[in-house]
């Protein structure tokens, strides 16, 4: 089970600032608490401002078959947007980023853990519910689960032939992140401030 919370208002607004936005809401699994009201309010405001090209509200965006068709149906609206903003847990965002390889896909929520089950997690996408979703700084690839050391500030010196130092069968997560950022023209996000992880998330949630 997990809880998603909207990222701070300034963070979300800076993601949408001056851009056309396509919104995807996942209200899927009952295991996830979704900040439905706050998300709706924000999206209503944006719609009034005319910056929203389209909205999908659905369940289980991490279910691959389901999602591919739905994205197809909104193809033009997605194309018209500068950024696809996903209101879901980390798995959902990664699923969408996986489909829309050429698009800038951003997470609007942070994901916190509660004991239990998370979504219909397809094998390739994992989320450890770290509480400070980094996907916006990493092109939609989760650095916590895709990197053996869960590094959040970039690649270590251990990758050889594109593989991780810990497991020669596993692609280096940070090499994937770098390539994805290059592909979507967002290498500039690597210039973000130094990230220091916060392991106090359990307390934050119970506050």
């Amino acid at each position, binding site marked *: 089970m997990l809880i998603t919370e909207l990222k701070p208002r300034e963070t979300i607004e800076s993601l949408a600032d001056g851009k056309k936005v396509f919104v995807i809401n996942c209200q899927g699994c009952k295991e996830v608490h979704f900040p439905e009201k706050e998300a709706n309010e924000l999206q209503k405001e944006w719609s009034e401002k005319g910056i929203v090209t389209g909205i999908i509200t659905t369940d289980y965006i991490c279910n691959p078959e389901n999602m591919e068709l739905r994205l197809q149906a909104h193809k033009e609206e997605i194309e018209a947007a500068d950024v696809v903003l996903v209101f879901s847990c980390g798995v959902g965002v990664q699923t969408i980023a996986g489909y829309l390889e050429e698009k800038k896909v951003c997470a609007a929520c942070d994901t916190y853990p509660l004991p239990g089950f998370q979504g219909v997690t397809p094998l390739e996408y994992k989320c450890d519910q770290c509480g400070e979703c980094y996907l916006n700084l990493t092109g939609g690839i989760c650095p916590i689960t895709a990197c053996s*050391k869960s*590094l959040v*500030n970039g690649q270590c*010196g251990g990758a*050889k032939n594109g593989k991780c130092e810990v497991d020669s069968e596993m692609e280096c997560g940070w090499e994937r992140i770098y390539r994805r950022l290059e592909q979507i023209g967002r290498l500039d996000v*690597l*210039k973000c401030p130094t990230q*220091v992880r916060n392991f106090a998330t359990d307390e934050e949630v119970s506050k």
Partner: protein
Amino acid sequence: MKITELFERGEFVVSAEVGPPKGFHVEHLLEEAKTYLSGITAVNVTDNQSSVMRLGSLAMCKALKDEGLTPIYQLTCRDRNRIALQSDLLSAAMFGIENLLLLTGDHTKLGDHPQAKPVFDLDSVSLIHAVTELEKGVDLGGNELIGEAPKFAKGAVVSPCSDSVDAQLAKMERKVRAGADYFQTQAVFEPEKFIKFMEKAKQFGKPVQVGIIIPKSAGMAKFMNNNVAGIHVPDEMIEELKKDKEKTKAGITGVEIAARIIKECKPYCQGVHIMALGWESKVPDLLKLAEI
């Protein structure tokens, strides 16, 4: 003495590396360091290198300092969380150890305690940031230090011949922004690649010491090619080493190769860092051959 002061004066800075033993007698190591390394600027002390448990880096730094050498304290994020790391940094300041090399560290799975918990609470970048904060008199928790704030020369590493050199450059930039003062590189066997790398790294305006490993034999070179990240020994060099027939020339070819690499890289960088891996006795010859 901070090695940054030497860079500022435009000196070509030479450092070498010693690895503490798996045990607590360090007399022979200190003797060796005094005999072969006292002519150079500074001595790096590795921190449980390759995730193999050994005597601590900080204790060895202190012992070297007492012998009149200038230690560079290597610190990795693998074994300690931010509380222990910051605490050790204050201990280093107390001992008058002023030079640091701040690394993420190899994963525990690579060493002799694969069952151990890999910590990585911080990483190289956030560790550099933590030192920068301590130098301002505050810890990572935002609490003020009592009394004088410590001051260090903050070193970091980069892998110029890595097959993901662009990702490495991006990381280097993050290290600079977090406060890194100088860089030491992974061992270079391909000077052309290093020179290309330096063309791009120049923009950060930080001194770089080229990393050098003396290739002891063709076997060692092949092993590194297959197993060590960011290192590629070209085929011609392996052929050269093969001809050496190892014992007859007692590794002189390896020293010659290393000297050649230093000479080729020297115009493009600000120093050299030698990882002798047990061949400390060859360091004086190497430097002479490289005309340093």
